């Protein structure tokens, strides 16, 4: 039996989908990679530099482009996957343009959506001029201009951790894992680009779980004088000079604190993507209480769905960083290949 005779559909062309497609193609399988946007790359397209080493995101983007540059891969863009159903041994993949594909196996890699910051009404995102999201700060790094809405250089910036994560009020009890270290990274970048600007991170816990994250946190204090205040910001408003005013408890001092800021950055978390949700609902796939896809086993089967031949890769199952996403995608490929070989 020739391995190349197998056809695998990968739904989602972000980091997980690109890595999975590349790994499958490398093994000689025919892959159809389906991306709903006009270009593959997912959220990484927007990122300027990556934690923990602040390397340019472009390096990883280039790696992934090379990864899918393989004649075994057909890339469909501008089309989504609506539904996956089992027919006999095969999987039928229904696409948003009305067409249908059949495959021997499929991998869902629909990723995450960033939390919609409007939902934390108390921070006034979309109302106050200088409240932005972490993704928008990354855009500023891309353009090289970190300025307030009226073009001034900020002299004090605050970053709020856990916006849309660990928060029952928005129905997300999970931790998004990457935003703490993103905040540390962005705080350092601001301090490097604007040495005259004070930076404050408002955190509930510093979750520096990955290699070199804790070291980055230490570096941010030691070399870049980033300030950390433990407490959840309760509200933001503006004063007569259109400067932001925040209220927070300095929980370590045990006292409420107010502070004026020129810019407030909301570290928006990860949620199950809307596209992935629609696909899961249409296909009858289980989801966990965090609304991400529920895997076969949390410890030894976290690429496995309950549908034989269908596998999961990346942040459609839980928040994770790029390193873990790539590993998870490779593991999904290993599971898929094992399935194809024993079929």
């Amino acid at each position, binding site marked *: 039996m020739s391995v190349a005779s197998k056809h695998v559909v990968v739904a989602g062309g972000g980091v997980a989908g690109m890595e999975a497609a590349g790994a499958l193609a490398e093994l000689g399988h025919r892959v159809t990679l389906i991306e709903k946007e006009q270009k593959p790359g997912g959220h990484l397209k927007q990122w300027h530099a990556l934690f923990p080493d602040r390397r340019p995101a472009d390096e990883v983007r280039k790696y992934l482009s090379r990864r899918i540059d393989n004649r075994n891969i057909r890339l469909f863009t501008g089309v989504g996957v609506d539904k996956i159903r089992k027919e006999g041994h095969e999987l039928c993949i229904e696409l948003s343009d009305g067409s249908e594909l059949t495959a021997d196996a499929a991998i869902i890699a629909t990723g995450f959506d960033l939390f919609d910051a409007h939902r934390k009404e108390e921070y006034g995102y979309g109302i106050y001029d200088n409240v932005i999201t972490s993704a928008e700060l990354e855009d500023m790094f891309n353009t090289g201009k970190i300025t307030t809405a009226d073009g001034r250089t900020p002299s004090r910036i605050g970053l709020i951790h856990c916006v849309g994560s660990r928060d029952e009020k928005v129905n997300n009890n999970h931790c998004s894992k990457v935003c703490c270290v993103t905040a540390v990274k962005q705080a350092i970048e601001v301090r490097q680009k604007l040495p005259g600007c004070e930076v404050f991170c408002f955190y509930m816990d510093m979750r520096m779980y990955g290699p070199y994250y804790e070291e980055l946190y230490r570096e941010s204090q030691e070399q870049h004088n980033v300030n950390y205040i433990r407490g959840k910001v309760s509200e933001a408003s503006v004063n007569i000079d259109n400067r932001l005013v925040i209220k927070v408890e300095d929980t370590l001092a045990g*006292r*409420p*604190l*107010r502070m004026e800021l020129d810019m407030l950055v909301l570290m928006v978390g990860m949620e199950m993507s809307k596209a992935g949700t629609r696909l899961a609902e249409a296909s009858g796939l289980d989801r966990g209480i965090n609304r991400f896809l529920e895997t076969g086993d949390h410890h030894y089967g976290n690429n496995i769905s309950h549908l034989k031949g269908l596998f999961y890769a990346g942040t459609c199952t839980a928040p994770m960083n790029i390193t873990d996403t790539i590993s998870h995608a490779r593991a999904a490929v290993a599971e898929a290949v094992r399935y194809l070989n024993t079929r």
Partner: protein
Amino acid sequence: MSGSTRNKFGFTVNRSRLIDYDSSDRLVREYITSREPSFRLCFACGGCTAACTAGHHAPFNLRRMNTLIRRGEIDPLRDEVTRCMLCGKCLLVCPRGVNTRNVVLLAAEAIRKLDRNEL
């Protein structure tokens, strides 16, 4: 507190507990940080406070003191900083390598200078 407690109303306006970062005094923080840069590294674990000889019998909390100095809240510290017994136990325990004993000494020195208008 404004007004006297004895007025025709029988009550006065309560005192603010707020730390107003914009009107706080950062001189002491700068005095310490410039002389003892490791002060920046404290991440408020409380190891020093657990170990502190003085803190076990007197109101002195080094972890909290570090935080208050960073926020420019000096008033509550005047008495506290004099309680250090210079044993150095806090130095041994600090996971971030803060030169805690020196921080206490510098804090006491800075506050003395602040009160004499020498900062």
